[in-house]
C-alpha cells in the first residue's frame, strides 16, 4: 500500500523503510536525496524547498499507484522548508519481489519526481542564491 507525502518536518527514514517491508517482497531499494555541499565549484550552505502541496501529492499518488500496479510497495516523501547540509530532501522506496524491478522502479520514480512534481528548491550558495541550483539538469 503506497504512502506519499509532502513533509514539513525532518524525514524519519527508518519509519519510512519499515513501511515497505512485506513477506511477498524480497528486494527493497531506497533512494534518499540529501543536501550536498559542492556542485562543481559552487558551495551550498542550505536550501529552502517549497511545493504546490495539493497538486504535488496528486502527482506523487499517480506515480505510486502506477508502480504499485506492477507489484510493489511504494513510498515517496518530499521535504519542504529549510534544510541544512546532509538533511534528507526526499525518500523514495520500492519493495518488490525481485531486486532488478526494485532498482528499476525506484530510479524511474525519482527521475520522474524531479521532472514533473511541483516542488522547488531555493539554494543558498556562498556566491549567491539560486532557484533550482547551479545545474538544474538531472543530477
Amino acid at each position, binding site marked *: 500500500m503506497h504512502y506519499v507525502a509532502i513533509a514539513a518536518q525532518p524525514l524519519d527514514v527508518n519509519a519510512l523503510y519499515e513501511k515497505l517491508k512485506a513477506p511477498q517482497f524480497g528486494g527493497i531499494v531506497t533512494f534518499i*536525496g540529501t543536501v550536498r555541499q559542492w556542485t562543481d565549484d559552487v558551495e551550498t550552505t542550505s536550501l529552502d*524547498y*517549497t*511545493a*504546490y502541496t*495539493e*497538486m*504535488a501529492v*496528486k502527482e506523487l499518488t499517480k506515480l505510486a499507484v502506477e508502480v504499485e500496479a506492477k507489484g510493489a510497495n511504494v513510498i515517496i516523501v*518530499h521535504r519542504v522548508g529549510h534544510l541544512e547540509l546532509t538533511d534528507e*530532501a*526526499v525518500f523514495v522506496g520500492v519493495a518488490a519481489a525481485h531486486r532488478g524491478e526494485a532498482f528499476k522502479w525506484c530510479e524511474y520514480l*525519482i527521475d520522474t*519526481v*524531479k*521532472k*514533473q*512534481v*511541483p*516542488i*522547488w*528548491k*531555493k539554494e543558498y550558495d556562498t556566491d549567491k542564491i539560486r*532557484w*533550482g*541550483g547551479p545545474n*538544474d539538469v538531472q543530477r
Partner: protein
Amino acid sequence: MMFNVKLFAILAEQIGRSEVELSIATPITAATVKAALQAQFPQTAAVLADCLVAINQTFVSEEHFAPDEVSEIALIPPVSGG
C-alpha cells in the same frame, strides 16, 4: 474574465505575491493564462517562457476550458525537487 492564479517559487518572488487576480481571455488555455500574467507583469516574461500551467491541479497545454470548468489555476516554474 477575472480569475485568481497561484504563483510559486521564482515567479512568486518576482511579483511579491503567491496569488494574483488576472483578467484572462476565454476559453482558457495555457497560452491565455500566460498572456494574462505577462500583460499585467511584463517583468516576468523571461521566467514565464519556461513555466507550465496547471488547471485544476493538472498540467495543461493545448486543452481549452470554459470558465465554469476551472476551479484552480496555477503557473508552474521549472520544478527542482529531489
